[in-house]
């Protein structure tokens, strides 16, 4: 008999039989099927017997036998069961408030961070996809043969748009879009604003919700549509409709009325703009220019096709435009024209020149994504560790349930449903945290306008839903399967060992400590670098200097004369670019070798005015004609990189003119510390006209006299934007950027250390409560505090040690390259950030464990051993 027991009927078929069969017929039928199976097994072998069994299962599948008993039985009970799962889960949460708080707090912080990171990334990738017509809109592009191969351009010749209705079929609508940066003047204030010049059909193809007015306002050439932000900035609380403003392009001023205001775009539109203007109002729209000139003007052109239009056919019809273009403008032939679907524009960033989007900003996305992931991992590990430990109090429950007949899958399901409850809370709180704390903070740092838009953005729902599911499964699956795998006999006998000694917990804890170390090192190193850079010598004296822009060359001389007359001004000097900003590059020739160097054209007194430090040779002498015509000052890097020694025995050729190097100045920072110091040559040009004026003021008077400088400037340039700034503030934007990132990283480091600490605290305290009797008995038998604490601390110190090694190695590798992407000048991951990070973590660990040891020391063994 026994040998038959080695084989069993096919499991799946057997299950199927159980599944469909009426309960009161099942025993009889299944018994017979089994009996025949074993008969066949003896006579004809396993394969035949199995086949026959399956055959029988199907032959029993008759109406009179089918009851779907199990199915119906489960269905009626499921709701009750699930309800009681949640009830038990809720009671468990209430019973263990401390640990639940740690889990929920950690998870919700993590969810909050992830939401911010998600919104930031989605904001880049889903930009513009809220447009209802997005699947019908296509952008016209063309490719042409360039020196570096075929290049695709996002712009096409302007007249193409007018020919579209007669040439292309199945096209509903088309619009030209021209991006401009005009000066906006309103109420004596002027700003540069990003403007879109578009056909009125733009507002039909792209749908925007209007706050005031209506989309048709664009049909009037003298009306503009503003964004919510601009309207608020210009008019504040006033009703914007009908208000007047003027736009200046190339010195031409034109008056407009506000015809409409868009609702807040929340940074989710494809185009980044502040106002929309009718295309006809653009000063360049002159109809009677030569045909060739018209065809060489290029701008973005969008078409909206009819539903279900044949795109390849439209693309083939574009051939006509290629022909016209190549006839009219043979010097600049198109190879091909094509269509890019509106939703695909984002994927073509980098492939298309002059496209709508040309920048993705992968770096910040990675940074934020990493932060979100770090925090999430920390929180998830906390939760896994704690939930395993917490379940050790429920081992008896598991045992009893198993004895009564719960299947393992039911237990797993129960644990998962409790998890779901916790994760649901976490997600809910995470949304609140993100919406009210994280996002406003982040928006301020990154000057963004991200918001959680639960009503209109369906992607956020998908994101939150998948977060809920993912976190529930990740945090729940391991504990659930692990706990439900115990044998009931072991549990009820009390043999089951569980808890903090497990390798798994230690591994997770090590990982958490490692993450905490890495994020701390990143933050400390970044802040340290920031601190060092804030005190870095710029290589020149930036105090008491004002830089102002000269918008047009005719204003240069009057501006210079007027400003020189100001009493607080000591000296004035003009320059083509200014130190503290981007400086153009020129090719220099020395002998046969060619190099690209920064090339600064300035008046001869500019180097002295800036207080550049002379190293060798001399500064320009304004009275020497040779100095203003054929002399150069270079910086030290120039000599170092080109391998030269001062004095040079040869001349330097720039643009086929020869120059003598008359002096060498110390290196100075013309751009922010993100960039290396480049080789630089300064030429003094005589009495020419420059783009910028630098004013040297009386000591301490620079800031105070800014206002009077501005007034003088406006007297001479009535239509223009005053861009004066102090020399000390030239890096202001970069410094603000870097400080923002420092804040972000410090925040995430604090959060990750807090989470790791909380996790550790929960672990140690749960461990302690479980074993306090053990410790008390030791105490009674005379163990001193030292022994007890050694026993406890040893394990965590070991984990700290491992994490310290791993964390340091990873930090040195990754954080250095992270710093490299922000600074050319940084202190690297030295002993300070590493030491600080390790020390802080060690301190935190010891404090946490010590607080628990204190509990043992204070505990009165008689009280604890007496209870229960």
């Amino acid at each position, binding site marked *: 008999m026994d040998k038959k027991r080695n084989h069993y009927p096919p499991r799946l078929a057997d299950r199927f039989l159980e599944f469909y069969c009426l309960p009161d017929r099942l025993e009889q039928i*299944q*018994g*017979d099927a089994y009996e*025949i199976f074993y008969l066949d097994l003896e006579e004809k072998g396993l394969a035949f017997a199995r086949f026959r069994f399956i055959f029988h299962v199907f*032959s*029993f599948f008759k109406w009179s036998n089918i009851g779907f008993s199990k199915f119906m039985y489960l269905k009626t009970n499921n709701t009750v069961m699930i309800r009681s799962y949640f009830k038990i889960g809720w009671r468990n949460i209430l019973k263990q408030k401390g640990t639940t708080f740690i889990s929920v707090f950690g998870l919700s912080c993590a969810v909050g961070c992830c939401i911010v990171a998600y919104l930031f990334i989605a904001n880049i990738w889903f930009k513009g996809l809220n447009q209802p017509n997005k699947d019908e809109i296509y952008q016209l592009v063309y490719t042409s043969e360039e020196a570096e191969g075929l290049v695709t351009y996002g712009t096409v010749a302007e007249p193409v748009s007018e020919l579209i209705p007669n040439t292309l079929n199945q096209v509903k609508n088309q619009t030209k879009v021209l991006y401009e940066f005009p000066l906006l003047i309103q109420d004596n204030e002027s700003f540069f604003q990003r403007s879109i010049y578009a056909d009125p059909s733009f507002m039909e193809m792209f749908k925007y919700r209007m706050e005031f007015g209506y989309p048709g306002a664009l049909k009037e050439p003298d009306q503009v549509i503003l964004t919510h932000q601009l309207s608020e900035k210009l008019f504040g609380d006033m009703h914007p409709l009908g208000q007047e403003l003027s736009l200046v392009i190339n010195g031409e001023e034109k008056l407009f009325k506000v015809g409409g205001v868009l609702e807040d775009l929340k940074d989710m539109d494809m185009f980044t703009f502040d106002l929309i203007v009718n295309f006809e109002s653009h000063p360049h729209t002159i109809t009677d220019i030569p045909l060739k000139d018209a065809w060489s003007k290029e701008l973005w052109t969008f078409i909206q096709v009819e539903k279900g239009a044949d795109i390849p056919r439209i693309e083939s019809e574009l051939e006509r435009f290629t022909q016209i273009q190549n006839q009219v403008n043979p010097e600049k032939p198109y190879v091909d024209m094509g269509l890019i679907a509106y939703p695909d524009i984002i994927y073509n960033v980098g492939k298309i020149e002059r496209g709508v989007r040309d920048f993705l900003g992968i770096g910040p996305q990675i940074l934020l994504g990493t932060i979100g992931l770090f925090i999430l991992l920390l929180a998830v590990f906390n939760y896994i560790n704690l939930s395993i430990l917490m379940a050790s109090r429920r081992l008896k429950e598991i045992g009893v349930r198993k004895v009564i007949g719960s299947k393992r899958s039911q237990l797993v399901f129960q644990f998962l449903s409790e998890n779901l409850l916790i994760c649901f809370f976490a997600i809910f709180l995470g949304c609140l945290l993100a919406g009210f704390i994280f996002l406003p903070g982040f928006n301020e740092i990154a000057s963004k306008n991200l918001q959680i838009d639960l009503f209109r953005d369906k992607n956020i729902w998908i994101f939150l839903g998948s977060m809920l599911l993912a976190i529930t499964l990740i945090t729940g699956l391991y504990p659930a399967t692990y706990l439900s795998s115990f044998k009931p006999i072991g549990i009820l006998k009390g043999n089951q060992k569980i808890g903090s000694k497990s390798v798994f917990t230690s591994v997770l804890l090590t990982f958490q400590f490692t993450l905490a170390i890495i994020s701390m090192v990143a933050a400390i190193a970044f802040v340290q670098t920031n601190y060092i850079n804030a005190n870095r010598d710029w290589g020149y004296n930036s105090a008491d200097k004002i830089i102002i822009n000269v918008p047009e060359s005719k204003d240069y001389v009057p501006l210079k004369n007027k400003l020189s007359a100001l009493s607080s001004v000591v000296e004035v000097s003009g320059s083509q670019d200014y130190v503290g900003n981007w400086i153009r590059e020129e090719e220099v020739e020395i002998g046969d070798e060619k190099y690209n160097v920064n090339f600064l054209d300035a008046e001869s007194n500019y180097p002295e005015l800036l207080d550049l430090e002379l190293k060798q040779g001399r500064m320009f002498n304004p009275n020497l004609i040779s100095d203003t015509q054929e002399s150069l000052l270079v910086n030290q890097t120039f000599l170092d990189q080109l391998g030269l020694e001062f004095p040079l025995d040869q001349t330097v050729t720039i643009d086929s003119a020869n120059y003598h190097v008359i002096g060498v100045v110390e290196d100075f920072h013309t751009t922010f510390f993100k960039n290396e110091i480049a080789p630089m040559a300064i030429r003094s040009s005589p009495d020419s006209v420059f783009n910028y004026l630098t004013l040297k003021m009386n000591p301490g008077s620079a800031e105070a006299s800014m206002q009077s400088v501005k007034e003088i400037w406006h007297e001479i340039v009535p239509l223009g934007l005053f861009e004066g700034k102090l020399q000390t503030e030239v890096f202001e934007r970069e410094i603000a950027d870097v400080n923002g990132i420092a804040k972000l990283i410090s925040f995430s480091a604090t959060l990750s250390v807090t989470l790791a600490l909380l996790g550790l605290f929960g672990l140690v305290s749960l461990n302690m409560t479980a074993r306090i009797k053990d410790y008390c008995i030791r105490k009674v038998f005379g163990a001193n505090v030292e022994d007890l604490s050694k026993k406890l601390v040893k394990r965590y110190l070991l984990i700290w040690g491992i994490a310290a090694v791993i964390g340091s190695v990873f930090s040195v590798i990754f954080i250095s390259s992270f710093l490299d992407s922000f600074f050319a000048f940084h202190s690297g991951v030295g002993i300070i950030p590493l030491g600080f990070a390790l020390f802080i973590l060690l301190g935190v660990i010891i404090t946490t464990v010590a607080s628990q040891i204190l509990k043992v020391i204070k505990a009165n063994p008689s009280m604890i051993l007496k209870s229960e």
Partner: protein
Amino acid sequence: MKGYHLGELEELVLLIVGILDQEAYGVSVAEEIKSQTGRKVNISAIHTVLNRLEEKGFVRSHMGGATEERGGRRKRLFSLSASGRTAINEVKMMRNRLYDQLPPLALDFTNG
């Protein structure tokens, strides 16, 4: 004749149940049919017939006799009821009556 109509397989199964006396259940009935008549009948067909016979009241059943081959499951044991035996008798008698009325074989030329 009310209620005593039996199909061919029903009649066969009813007879076998009677023959097996206390040991009639699905598999044993199928085996017995096979050994007595050489016919292979599908087990599910036998179940259907047994159930139908029980509905008609010709057989009675009770659960019992678990064996290891069945994975500890009990058999549904069938036995002939009084009306079942009457039905068999009835069928047999009717068959005999009909048989007796058969004309003699063709070799007998008396009837021309």
